[in-house]
């Protein structure tokens, strides 16, 4: 399998604070991978290392086989990069910025850019700095599409966008990526957005990777069971199969990769009497919280 991104034994600290140690992951070509994690778990650190804006303490990331710290101009032309907050050269207007970028990319295709711009209600020489966050997101997306990169790295694309623009962004992006066999590596703090976009999910917690797998497989295998304890004081041993357990008095939410039969049998075996036992349908956001915990 060919990988667009391959990170090997990545270790990074900020001062003495460990961000992660020996992080390994790959992004196969043509897939859309969502990197999820709580604030401070290392998402932006990973994006910065991938873009060569941060040197890891040890380990390395390869993008199309080149060390991300020393990407050649030809390789950089294959990567579209969306900075958190849709940052662009906001002192330019939409004509100036298109003219500027078109000089750098041999595959520049202005059509998708102007198609998106035609949907914006902006004047031709309105500065990007005076546009709304949603409009700026469309400018940033249009520029990336015109660049026609093979790999898109999107840092928190949903930041500052209202639901309509988020949906527009996601639907446009997914259709584009699938039609042209593009690879996307993305983060977003709004996890429910990811469900419509990504093929694979990589969930990080402080210092470690909790899971990396196809999102469908994750949603199928990771489960939430909800029940009430007959005896409010009963203790539930946190054995290996319990990924996370959230408890408020007698109400319990148990997250696991095991089946309903297994969990019922386990509770029965431990003599823990329960009522209202049921499996709860989860969205990706529920599953993310279930896996990483609320705190």
């Amino acid at each position, binding site marked *: 399998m060919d990988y667009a991104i391959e990170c090997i034994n990545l270790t990074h600290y900020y001062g003495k604070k460990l961000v992660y140690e020996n992080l390994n992951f790959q992004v196969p070509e043509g897939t859309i991978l969502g990197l999820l994690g709580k604030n401070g778990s290392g998402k932006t650190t990973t994006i*910065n290392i991938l*873009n*060569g*804006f*941060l*040197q890891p303490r040890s380990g390395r990331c390869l993008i199309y086989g080149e060390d991300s710290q020393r990407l050649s*101009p*030809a390789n*950089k*032309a294959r*990567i579209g*990069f969306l*900075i958190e*907050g849709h*940052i*662009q*050269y906001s*002192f*330019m207007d939409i004509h*100036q910025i298109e*003219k*500027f*970028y*078109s*000089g*750098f*990319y041999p595959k520049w295709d202005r059509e998708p850019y102007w198609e998106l711009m035609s949907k914006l209600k902006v004047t031709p020489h309105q500065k990007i700095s005076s546009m709304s966050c949603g409009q700026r997101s469309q400018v940033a997306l249009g520029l990336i599409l015109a660049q026609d990169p093979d790999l898109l790295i999107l840092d928190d694309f949903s930041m500052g966008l209202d639901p309509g623009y988020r949906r527009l962004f996601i639907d446009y992006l997914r259709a584009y990526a699938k039609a042209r066999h593009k690879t996307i590596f993305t983060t977003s703090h709004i996890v429910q957005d990811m469900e419509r976009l990504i093929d694979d999910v990589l969930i990080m917690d402080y210092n470690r990777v909790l899971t990396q797998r196809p999102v469908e497989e994750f949603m199928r295998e990771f489960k939430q069971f909800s029940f009430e304890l007959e005896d409010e004081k009963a203790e539930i041993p946190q054995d290996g199969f319990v990924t996370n357990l959230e408890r408020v008095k007698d109400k319990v939410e148990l997250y696991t990769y095991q089946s309903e039969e297994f969990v019922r049998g386990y509770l029965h075996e431990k003599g823990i009497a329960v009522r209202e036992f049921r499996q709860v349908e989860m969205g990706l956001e529920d599953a993310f919280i279930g896996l990483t915990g609320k705190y």
Partner: protein
Amino acid sequence: MLIRSMIFKEWVKVRWFLLLYTLLAVLAVAYIFIRVRHDITFHEANNYWYFILFQGHSWFRLLRYIPLAGGLVLAVAQYFPETVNKRIKLTFHLPVEENRSLLMMMQFGTLCLLACFLLLFLLLCGLSRVWFPTEIIFSAVVSVTPWFLAGFAAYYLAALIILEPVWLRRILYLLVAAAFVPLYLTGSVPGGYGPAILALFLLTCLLSVALLFSGYRFRKGEM
């Protein structure tokens, strides 16, 4: 194509600042000669020349800080927008070697300053010929050359400071720059800087690449 694009971006950033600065600087040069004309009219030419030749009267002293201000204005207009929201990431992500991008930006700024300073210099020399003999003009040229070099030095040092990602280091660089730039500006005797001009020129050339260090530190993730 990419050089044209790079020039275009830099021009969009600096054009109004550069034009406004050039206009004000030209007005300042014009004011110098209004004063010269006034002084010659009231003191007579032979007395006025005497003040200049034997009493060290510096008739062009208004010009002293004008190139310095130009260097600072251009550096802020050109590099500050790159630091807002860490936009320099966009520049480093362009399919161009990162140091080359920074050097292109610096060369653009240098050429803008050079064009502007050349205009001021030619205006100064050209109008001087109306009022002064060659000896006075030559000593004025020797005196103002370090001031123009100060403009370039201020531009290069300001680029280093603005692009530096850590505030504490910015302050440190600022203190060093504040101690260093007056080297170009201390002498007030006409022609007094003659022996030092070559050394100041070489020093200024060395400063021109200082911004690469801030760029390197940004890319290593210093914050």
